[in-house]
């Protein structure tokens, strides 16, 4: 009689294992699937005076082959990898934009100064003057276009931040749902792990980490999620969604805000997160690109545009045009106005006037008023460049801040702040102020149609070190920009390769434990089929034994 039971328990165990093997084979390519196996134990023995007779085998549980450490290592590597890919996608666009040095700003600069030289050599030649106007217009267009490209990228990043934040919130919501499903599943089968739900939740976390690096804390069977420096996304069963909002200091910049409890029940408030706080994943990569590459490249371009416009205009004003009049502005540009923070209590304004463009930096400036004193801080470096009541900023002579005169207007309230981006939009605002070839002030103060002395001085600006405190010519400033982009793209490519290797390694380690190997499953199939056959044979033998005994009776 016992043989039947033994056969049955063996059949059951083999069946369970074959099932699990089948499940493994089916999910060999399922993302996030962890190999499952059946845990069995001996069913114990029945004690008799002759000893304990085993009762067969017992299926205890179905377990997944899972190691939290290996899993977290892999996810963290993937999150960093996704950040680098997002960064790389953006920087490679810039890299490609600057790839061909036969088009764009560099040849436009060359051609522009070439035509200045031509006017210097033949100041009376109307064709040469017309050519200069044409080349100047081309240079302006190229700088405008490059800036437009950067602005498009900025807008695209704003949109991507918005979409990514929505996706993040959606993942958090689904993880919250899975938390609940897991609790329910565990209640329905106490003591048994809901492996596939675990896998699904882990996969959600993996995918969420592709968007942003998330910290997971396990509380019982529930995942709590937080980002950055501890901003909570999911706690208990409450979701605190991230939001993409216009920055209060710069409305054109979409930033991420998190919702924080106010202390009053059910009430939350939005708090802007500093870009540098959010790391990893696509969002981290986008924010890092904007912070470390896009801002500085656009500012560099703007500084070059301002340097060109101001230096050329200043020299142009020294000369005399064909009509004998002093040179008018050659290029047009816009003196920068600082943006008021959305939270400012007063309407007081801050603007700046370019005085010495050679001292101009590529930084932005945060201006704060504490009720008595202004502080001016260079950002993103966070270097304080001025503290004082502001009187000397408008003094005679004014205290210049990095080559700019700062103009304060209105009565500020304590706590007001402004963001000054002197060069950010200069590439956009650069224009050609001159259209009439006769207005080119090629002559020096002596005048005369054959006098090209001022044009000679203008041509000298091609190599004059007019930027970066006398360290760079216009062309060198541009080549530095290209170098900057190239280096960042190169670094990203190198780091991405290393990261890809790391991902490969951590994945291999995780898969070595959790992955399905079809050969192994094939052998398992054979093994368990044989086990099944053997168990069936036990029943067969049991029947034979019965038959033998029944035959004796007959």
């Amino acid at each position, binding site marked *: 009689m016992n043989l039947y039971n033994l056969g049955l328990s063996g059949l059951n165990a083999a069946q369970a294992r074959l099932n699990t093997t089948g499940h493994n084979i089916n999910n060999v390519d399922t993302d996030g699937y962890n190999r499952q196996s059946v845990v069995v134990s001996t069913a114990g023995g029945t004690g008799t005076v002759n000893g304990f007779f085993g009762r067969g085998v017992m299926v205890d549980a179905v377990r997944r082959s899972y190691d939290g450490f290996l899993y977290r290592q892999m996810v963290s590597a993937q999150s960093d990898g996704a950040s680098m890919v997002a960064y790389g996608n953006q920087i490679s666009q810039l890299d490609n934009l600057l790839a061909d040095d036969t088009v764009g700003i560099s040849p436009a600069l060359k051609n522009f100064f*070439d035509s200045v*030289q031509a006017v210097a*050599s033949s100041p009376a*030649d109307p064709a040469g003057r017309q050519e200069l106007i044409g080349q100047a217009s081309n240079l302006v267009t190229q700088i405008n276009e490059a800036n437009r490209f950067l602005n498009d990228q900025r807008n695209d990043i704003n949109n991507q931040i918005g979409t990514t934040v929505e996706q993040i919130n959606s993942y958090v919501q689904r993880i919250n749902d899975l938390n609940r499903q897991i609790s329910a599943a565990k209640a329905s089968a106490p003591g048994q792990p809901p492996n596939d739900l675990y896998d699904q939740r882990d996969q959600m976390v993996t995918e969420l980490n592709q968007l942003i690096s998330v910290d997971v804390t396990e509380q019982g069977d529930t995942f709590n999620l937080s980002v950055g420096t501890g901003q909570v996304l999911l706690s208990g069963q409450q979701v605190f969604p991230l939001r993409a909002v216009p920055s209060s200091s710069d409305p054109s910049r979409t930033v991420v805000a998190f919702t924080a409890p106010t202390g009053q029940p059910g009430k939350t408030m939005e708090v802007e997160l500093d870009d540098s706080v959010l790391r990893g994943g696509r969002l981290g990569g986008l924010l890092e690109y904007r912070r470390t590459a896009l801002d500085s490249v656009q500012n560099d371009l703007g500084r070059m545009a301002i340097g060109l416009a101001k230096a050329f205009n200043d020299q142009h004003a020294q000369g005399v045009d064909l009509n004998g009049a002093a040179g008018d502005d050659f290029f047009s540009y816009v003196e920068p106005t600082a943006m008021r923070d959305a939270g400012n209590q007063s309407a007081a304004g801050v603007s700046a006037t370019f005085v010495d463009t050679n001292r101009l930096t590529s930084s932005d400036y945060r201006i704060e008023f504490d009720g008595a004193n202004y502080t001016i801080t260079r950002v993103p470096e966070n270097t304080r460049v001025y503290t004082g009541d502001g009187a000397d900023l408008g003094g005679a002579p004014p205290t210049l801040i990095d080559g700019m005169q700062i103009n304060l207007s209105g009565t500020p309230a304590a706590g007001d702040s402004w963001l000054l981006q002197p060069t950010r939009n200069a590439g956009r605002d650069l224009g050609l102020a001159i259209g009439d070839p006769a207005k080119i002030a090629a002559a020096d103060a002596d005048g005369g*149609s054959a006098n090209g002395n001022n044009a000679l001085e203008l041509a000298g600006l091609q190599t004059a070190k007019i930027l970066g405190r006398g360290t760079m010519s216009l062309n060198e400033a541009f080549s530095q920009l290209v170098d900057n982009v190239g*280096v960042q793209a190169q670094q990203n490519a190198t780091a991405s390769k290393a990261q890809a290797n790391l991902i490969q390694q951590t994945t291999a380690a995780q898969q070595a434990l959790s992955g399905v190997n079809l050969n192994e499953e094939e052998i398992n199939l054979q093994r368990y089929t044989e086990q099944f056959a053997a168990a069936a044979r036990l029943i067969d033998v049991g029947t034979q034994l019965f038959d033998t005994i029944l035959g004796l009776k007959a």
Partner: protein
Amino acid sequence: MRISTSLMYQTGLGTLSSQQSDLMHLFQQIGTGRRLVTPSDDPLAAAQSINTAQTLAMNKRYADNRAVANQNLGIEENTLSSVTEALRDIKTRVIEAGNGTYSDADRQSLADVLKNYRESLLGYANATDGNGQYLFSGYKGDTQPYVQAADGSIAWNGDSGQRTIQVDQTRRMASGDVGTDIFSRATPGANGYVTQAGPGNAGTAVAGTTSVIDPSGPNVGDSFSISFSNADLDGDGTDELAYTVTIDDGTTQTSLPPQAYVDGARIDLGGVRLSIGGAPKAGDYFDVEPAQSADVDMFGTLDALIDMLETPVDGDPVAQARIANLLSTANQKITINHDNVLTVRSSIGARMDELDKLDANGAQRGLGYEAQLSRLQDLDWYQATADLQLRQTALQAAAMAFQTIQMNTSLFLRNQ
């Protein structure tokens, strides 16, 4: 170690992708012929190539500028070559006119010839370039430099602006010369003299050419005046004709004691010497001025000459003496002009020669920059083709290896 089946596929795919992306990059390099497809391939080289490209462009620009300078100087040289011819002819005519056999009618026809030369010279002085800009007017390229007034006199209307062209990174060259430096200037440093008889001289004294016999003489460079008077030098109670030399060094005037006049006497002025012949009258004088301060305006000289040649002098020895003196003065001035134009021409020649040398240097440098740019940017074709072969083989090998491993290690497939 367990190799999961999906990892095996992923790894196989990853290997193939990375091989293919390397191959793709190589294709791009070969397709464009550039080593640097994007700045990230070699950021420093990309930045350097931008600066080198600018240097190369500027080098080309200076070559273009030199072409302009060469053209301007060529036009000027052509014009001044004609001016030299004209001056040489005028000189010949002036010397002919001084031989004493000319009648009033001969002189009149000579005056007509000189008028023609004057017209030609005026034309040369107002020559223009391809843009209609006057060559010699200084900065005022559109202002006619020499204008004939209603009374026939020719006045300078230009300015002293020196046109310059950037012919090399550090060299700005004068691409022309100002009219006053050509038509009314003695060569700077020339120490010649111009002798002029007083316009009201009543005697028949004629001054010979003033020459500098000792360049280190005490009075070289000073102005002199030789005036005649009657004085009783030997104390015999009757006056003799005497001359007094006054030396003007620019600040003070010193009169030497009167000397007795002897016809044809050589008068030594301290490094400078001239001879005066004929019979002067008391009150006559001669001015001897250094070329540097004398009025040597070509057109003024010609006008005075023409005016004088048209005045009848036959049978009047005083007028004939006056004409002889004027011709002598004109001859000296035209010689000074001629020398000066030749000097300007030689300076043009020197400048054109310098341009040639700068051209040679520029071409040499251009080759250097191009080679540098090519080193920075261009593909090493041999290397690239070899790499291409290698990569293709590697890709094929990777694909084959993947297939082999996959086919031969799957139990499921083997059982079929």
